[in-house]
């Protein structure tokens, strides 16, 4: 801690633990924040940083640990304000109305507006962070950085003293580089006035730019807590990935590949521009990239659930122009979406019904009815094969645990031996045991001749599974890694656009 930050910390977190079934999301995490300090909390998806914010926000309850405000006194109670990634603004309302929403509750909500006074008040709040802007137009028409400022101004409105805690959760996600400046200047001003800031981010360059101290979380544990002067880019990457340069695990080599099963040229659509991809039977190709790079958009475009255009799109040697999910399935594609509850399953139907939904023809008898006996036997076999627990085909999908739900989804797509299997975050929200089982299923599918595309935010997972990884940035393929080059560090660095620095 820098010596200038005397006195008791504003916020102290000690020994915080949070467990989910089969997963320890936070493991003995301690952290303190002093007045005037900007503390960055960094980590990959699943490192525990969002769990930490959600506990502080009261969304989750902690299983163990303490949260204290040592500097809080009766005269000067420490307040804690959180600005979530989506800002929580009502886009149709003006800045004034958004600023007033929290205050004007209960009886105060019936009082008439004093427009002039409110405009003046709003301007004053905003001008603390730089040039004021129009506060009378709907927030949706303002620039993203201006929206962030309104959200911060709203959090600050009513602070009786500046020595409070402000948490910014991934605040730069929607901002351009120039706007990030505006936001950072505002945050620095606040800290200079005595606020303690927690800045959650996965953008390493911004973290190094803004923070006084960097805390790194990995797999729920705090792995580093160092002042800005003592940390540089390489060390930060090593902390985040947990892999020191040189000792990295590399991608798989020497797996036999068959013919080309999927040939895509210049695929463009929402979030994706001119992506080429050639996939062989038995090959596993990874898609990496930070959030917003197009990584999460690509599989839906290929599967046809989102419209797209490609100069050439050939599946199994045949051109396939008008893509739709039904037609893709008919041609032998399978798609495991990232959002299991919304897209990957019918939660209120049974495991049996979920598994057989994409293809019921082979289970239909002469009278046009699904043969219950054959369907049950078939699903029972798959449930045993993929080790779904409990092994009950008649249990409603929603009542399985996350890992077993995903096994059911895998069974659904693998049962007819797909030619091309598209996987989006295949092990999200899944416990370690199920994760290994799913990896095994992916290996087996590739060995059986499927071409597999895995989109994942977990570099480790990609290195474990893939022969080759395409790293996307701004919707385009920025790098292709394979063999020796396919390491966690390279995947992460290329994702941030720092490939050259990593090679020094």
């Amino acid at each position, binding site marked *: 801690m820098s010596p200038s930050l005397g006195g008791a910390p504003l916020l102290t977190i000690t020994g915080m633990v949070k*467990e*989910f*079934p*089969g997963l320890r999301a936070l493991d003995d995490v301690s952290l303190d924040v002093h007045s005037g300090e900007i503390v960055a909390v960094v980590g990959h998806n699943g490192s525990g940083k969002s769990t930490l914010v959600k506990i502080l926000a009261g969304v989750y309850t902690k299983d163990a640990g303490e949260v204290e405000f040592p500097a809080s006194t009766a005269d000067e109670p420490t307040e804690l304000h959180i600005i979530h990634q989506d800002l929580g603004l009502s886009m149709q309302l003006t800045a004034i109305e958004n600023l007033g929403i929290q205050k004007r509750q209960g009886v105060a909500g019936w009082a008439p507006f004093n427009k002039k006074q409110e405009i003046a008040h709003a301007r004053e709040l905003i001008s603390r962070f730089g040039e004021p802007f129009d506060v009378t137009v709907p927030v949706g028409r303002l620039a993203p950085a201006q929206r962030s400022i309104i959200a911060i101004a709203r959090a600050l409105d009513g602070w009786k003293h500046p020595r409070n805690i402000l948490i910014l959760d991934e605040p730069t996600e929607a901002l351009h580089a120039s706007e990030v400046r505006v936001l950072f200047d505002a945050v620095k001003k606040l800290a200079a006035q005595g606020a303690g800031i927690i800045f959650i981010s996965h953008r390493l360059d911004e973290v190094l730019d803004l923070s006084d101290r960097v805390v790194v979380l990995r797999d729920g544990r705090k792995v580093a807590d160092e002042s800005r002067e003592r940390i540089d880019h390489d060390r930060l990457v090593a902390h985040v990935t947990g892999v020191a340069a040189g000792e990295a695990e590399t991608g798989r080599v020497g797996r036999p590949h068959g013919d080309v099963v999927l040939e895509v040229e210049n695929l463009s659509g929402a979030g994706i521009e001119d992506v080429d991809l050639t996939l062989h039977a038995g090959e596993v190709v990874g898609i990496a990239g930070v959030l917003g790079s197009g990584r999460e958009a690509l599989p839906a475009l290929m*599967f046809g*659930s989102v419209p797209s255009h490609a100069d050439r799109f050939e599946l199994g040697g045949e051109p396939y122009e008008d893509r739709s*999910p*039904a037609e*893709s*399935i*008919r041609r032998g594609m399978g*798609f495991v*979406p990232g959002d299991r509850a*919304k*897209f*990957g*399953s*019918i*939660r*209120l*139907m049974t495991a049996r*019904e979920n598994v*057989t*939904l*994409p*293809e*019921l*023809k082979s289970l*239909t008898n002469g009278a*046009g*009815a*699904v043969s219950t006996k054959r369907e049950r036997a078939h699903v029972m076999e798959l449930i045993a094969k993929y080790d779904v*627990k*409990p092994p*009950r085909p*008649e*249990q*409603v999908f*929603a*009542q399985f*645990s996350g890992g077993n739900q995903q096994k059911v989804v895998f069974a*659904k797509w693998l049962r007819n031996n797909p030619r091309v299997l598209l996987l989006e975050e295949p092990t999200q929200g899944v416990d370690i045991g199920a994760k290994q089982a799913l990896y095994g299923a992916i290996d087996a599918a590739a060995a059986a001749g499927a071409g597999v595309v895995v989109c994942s935010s977990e570099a480790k997972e990609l290195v474990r599974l893939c022969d080759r990884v395409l790293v996307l940035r701004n919707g385009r393929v920025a790098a292709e890694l394979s063999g020796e080059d396919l390491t966690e560090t390279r995947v992460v660095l290329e994702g941030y656009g720092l490939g050259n620095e990593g090679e020094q």
Partner: protein
Amino acid sequence: MKKTEGIPTVTDSGKAVSSGSEWRRLLSFQNISAIYIFVVIFVIFSILVPALTGTQSFLAPGTWANLLDTQSLTVLAAIAVLIPLTAGVFNLAVGAEISFAMMLCIVLQLPSAQYQKDLGLALGLPWPVAAIITVLAGGLIGLASGLVVTRLKIDSFIATLGMSSILIALAYLISANRPFSVPAGFGSLSAANIPLGPFRLTLPVIVLIVIAVVGWYVLERTPIGRRMYAAGFNPDGARLSGVNVSRLQLGALVVGGLIAGVIGVLASSKFGGSPGYGNGMLLPALAAVFLGSTQFKGGRFNIWGTVLALYVLAVGIQGFLLVRVPDWITDFFYGVALIGAVAMSRWERTSKRLGAVKRATTLGSKK
């Protein structure tokens, strides 16, 4: 792993469940509450009706045969609501579709020489031709609703509510806002029957049985039905599993319209044409569909649950009418039944979900 210890607490109709507890589940109040409600209603009125009116009419077989026949059209209306709802779309236009079909079927049969002046559709057609045209018109109306829902992407609640108002207007337009009696000879259609012991199975009842059996078979036995349920539960998820959700919804609304056309033909053969007749059928139909979803299938809309629910509600109404409660009690009763039924189906889903959450958390804490 201790995790497996949590599994026996998961109660569901798995293979391991003994036949005794399977029976208990089948006969549980939650599974067949409508039958228990029916018994209660039956007992109350078989005591009340003789006591208050001095007749045995509630227990007379004629009362029941009559009930079966008069309510069969409302049950058909409920099926016309049920089929689209299974695929995730409301068909609030069913009442207006029936009204319109009734007027169309009658007006088409009116002698042109006499009516052509103010009724353009008075073509003097023989009743079988008029009936076929009416049923097809019902299908076309369903197609129109379906296109509004699937192509214009307008929420089915709004789309069919709007359609309903348009159809009521059209029913008045084609009939010049006049009621008509049953044309000569046409009445024989709804009166046609097969004697069956003391009862007579009238044509509306036979049509109901046929449509219900076909509907049940398609919904619960075929891939189409499976996909319709999937589309109703989660349209996005179903689409990604290869289900053509909009085509199913469109088709379901067309089938709903065809059934409404059939109801219109049967109703006009029985009652003639009154432009507002069908409008009162929407609420009982909706109430029966939602109450029916709480029966047998644990929260799923289903044909037999719907049929049962409607007859139970109708028996209740019949009892009220026999003890000379004023007519408005019908509307009151169906309103309460609709809200109560939806609340019950919500409650059932929530309790199931809470149960699942509880199990998930006990699994977690035992670790």
